[in-house]
């Protein structure tokens, strides 16, 4: 690989940056029209143009047509049935009246006014993991799709014709991808997954016009890299979609667990930058800072949850903050300019840490590392939350997250070896609750029983004071954000994605996945 080494400003991590001229993506757009990524800086309410709705990750809409007073009349506008086995786990993307919905190997373009299929792209059958897919991204006249066999495809937004198809990494080594790409200016930024092999954590940027690679960030170096800061760990995959602060020109991404997963002895030390939030320059992939939410993780607690960006007055001082409710059970607040800790406090049952250090990082209890006779650990592998998106309700300052109190059993013995999972673990019990945290203190303001195991639905809040999500059964829910009271519900099958909302022709829609279908709800037409 024709890379050059670059050292981050804190002098702690090497990234391999491909020396490439920046392509003239803006020039191409001016010539051909299409979706200008500058629109992502202030998305209009008739779009949901990127995974989180905008760059902040707040998943909070300004729309107010649907209110706590009228939401009980919400009715089905249309449904789109994929007729596929896979549940809808993706956030639909809406641009120019067309919704883009994905499952592994599949992308549908749907008329957002009627739910009618415009076109359907199906990727050729492949052997990689088909665990789920998080969504697409748009730029110009292209819509981007990652595939289980770790390709990145650009399709024509209006026909589904393949414009280009590049390999992100070699999937035969054990990588797969579920990732919803993030477009920042003329970069399409994509991540991959891989827990069953000892693989370096890879995030890559491609030119949206040509598919040419621009840079690669490694959260952990390739196995055998001398002087590695990861302590011999591989992993730290960046499989969820990051957030972006245009003023600081900084991309924030959560990194996954180290490998070997349960064998901590094979990789002594903190294992940077696994289970971390990393701040990157989106033009070069260079690391600005990192914050490790789970140092030396031995429980598969990816810090992949959404790094939510919030500007707020804290203690009389304007702060640029980053909020994450992390899989390990801790809610962390960072200064996103510096990566310094502002707050670290549990939001769910945990029993694996000895406390929180002065640097804001939980201190893992060595006695809770997986052992031959098993350790009872809270949370379980699925975590106190997971990839499902939280939402920040700006008006009330509530951070609403689908949480779980859960216990798991973790086993390790030397016979398990040093490769891939290298252990065994089992969920004992898990109970899901929607929790609303005071964003500044992390205190739980209200809880809403989801009646079962950890739910799989993400959360959407709106400026009218509504929270949309799904429970652990088969219901989509609308709650009053101020106190968590249920105002509307409907049984549409298990909700496994994060709801979105937009307004078309003066009508506000809320779109939610239920089972293998997508449902659009709106107020009755007058």
């Amino acid at each position, binding site marked *: 690989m024709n890379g050059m080494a670059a050292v981050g400003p804190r002098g702690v991590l090497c990234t391999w940056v491909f020396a490439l001229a920046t392509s003239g993506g803006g020039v191409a757009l001016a010539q051909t029209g299409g979706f200008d990524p500058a629109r992502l800086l202030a998305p209009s309410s008739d779009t949901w143009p990127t995974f989180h709705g905008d760059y902040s990750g707040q998943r909070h809409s300004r729309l107010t047509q649907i209110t706590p007073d009228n939401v009980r009349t919400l009715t089905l506008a249309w449904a789109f049935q994929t007729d596929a086995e896979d549940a809808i786990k993706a956030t639909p993307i809406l641009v120019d009246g067309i919704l883009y919905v994905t499952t592994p190997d599949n992308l549908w373009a749907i008329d957002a006014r009627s739910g009618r299929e415009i076109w359907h792209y199906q990727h050729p059958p492949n052997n*990689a993991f088909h665990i789920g897919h998080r969504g697409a991204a748009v730029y110009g006249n292209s819509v981007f799709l990652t595939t289980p066999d770790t390709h990145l495809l650009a399709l024509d937004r209006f026909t589904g014709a393949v414009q280009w198809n590049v390999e992100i990494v070699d999937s035969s080594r054990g990588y797969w991808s579920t990732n919803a790409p993030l477009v920042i200016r003329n970069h399409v930024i994509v991540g991959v997954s891989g827990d069953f092999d000892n693989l370096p954590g890879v995030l890559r940027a491609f030119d949206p016009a040509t598919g040419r690679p621009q840079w690669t960030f490694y959260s952990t170096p390739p196995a055998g890299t001398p002087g590695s800061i990861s302590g011999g760990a591989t992993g730290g995959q960046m499989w969820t979609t990051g957030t972006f602060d245009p003023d600081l020109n900084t991309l924030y991404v959560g990194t996954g667990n180290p490998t070997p997963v349960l064998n901590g002895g094979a990789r002594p030390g903190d294992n940077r930058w696994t289970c971390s939030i990393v701040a990157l320059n989106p033009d070069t992939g260079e690391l600005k800072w990192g914050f490790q939410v789970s140092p030396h993780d031995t429980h598969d607690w990816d810090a992949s949850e959404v790094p939510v960006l919030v500007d707020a007055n804290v203690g009389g001082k304007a702060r640029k903050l980053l909020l994450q409710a992390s899989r390990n059970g801790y809610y962390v607040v960072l200064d996103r300019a510096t990566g310094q800790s502002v707050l670290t406090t549990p939001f769910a049952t945990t*029993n694996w840490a000895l406390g929180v250090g002065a640097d804001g990082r939980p201190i893992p209890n060595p006695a809770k590392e997986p052992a*031959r006779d098993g350790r009872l650990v809270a949370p379980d592998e*699925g975590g106190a939350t997971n990839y499902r998106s939280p939402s920040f309700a700006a008006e009330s300052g509530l951070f609403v997250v689908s949480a779980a109190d859960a216990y798991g059993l973790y086993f390790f013995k030397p016979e398990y070896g040093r490769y891939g999972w290298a252990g065994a673990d089992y969920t004992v019990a898990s109970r899901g609750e929607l929790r609303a945290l005071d964003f500044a203190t992390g205190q739980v303001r209200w809880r809403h029983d989801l009646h079962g195991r950890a739910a799989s639905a993400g959360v959407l809040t709106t400026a009218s004071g509504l929270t949309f999500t799904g429970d652990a059964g088969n219901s989509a829910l609308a709650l009053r954000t101020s106190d968590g009271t249920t105002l509307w519900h409907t049984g549409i099958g298990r909700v496994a994605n994060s709801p979105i909302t937009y307004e078309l022709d003066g009508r506000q829609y809320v779109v939610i996945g239920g089972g293998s279908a997508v449902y659009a709800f709106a107020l009755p037409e007058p």
Partner: protein
Amino acid sequence: MFSSVPVGLAQNVSATSPAAQPLPRSASTQTYAPDLVAAGRTRFAAACGFCHGPEATGGSSGPDLTRSAVVAADEHGDRIGALVRTGRATAGMPAFPALSDADLAAIAAFIHEQKTKAEAETGDRRSVEPEDLVTGNARAGRRYFATACASCHSADGDLAGVASRYEGLDLLRNMLYPRGPRPTATATVTTRDGATVTGTLAYRDEFTIALTTAAGEYRSWPVDRVRLEIRDPLQAHFEQLGRYTDATMHDVLAYLQTLRQDTAR
């Protein structure tokens, strides 16, 4: 910040750990064409591998299929096929209704091939052996049981011979949070006209409650139209999970391991 690091448990385990617990043996000798097994590996990896592991030897949410009684009893997919098509909702396994007969045959062939390999293996597999789990102190466990568990359970009542019914990891997991057969929650529903119906809890979420009556009938009500009284024995198990230390958990397990059929009164 903290004064001392809790000391890990003493590991009262022999250094060599022969696989004392044999796998359930296949009911019949079966052979499958290499092409079919190879196709099955591909289909298995894509459809089943995330939960059951790419080698079918288990993951966080799916069991090790080389140790499955269903697989041991299966011949050419006759049992695996039906289970895969319908899923096991109670165990969290989804249904795969759309898999073709050819895919199912290939997946079954691959699972059998993995089982045959596992039966020939000597170690180094990611599963938990019963002798890994004998670190506790049964006497201490008996004392702990008397204070934490005895209000619902007794060694010569419901748990008589429990260690003959479950062992190893299966016993530990059922001890922590019963998996199957689960103890049934019961409930009484009082309707607005004052009628009461009692039965075992068939379903409960925020909006719907359903009971199975003594006559075997399924009945359901909107939660907001009735009064509910639910008795769920699993609630106490969930609360107990927050009270165990690893030491007391292993002690209670050691105590339960003494409750074998031949010692039951």
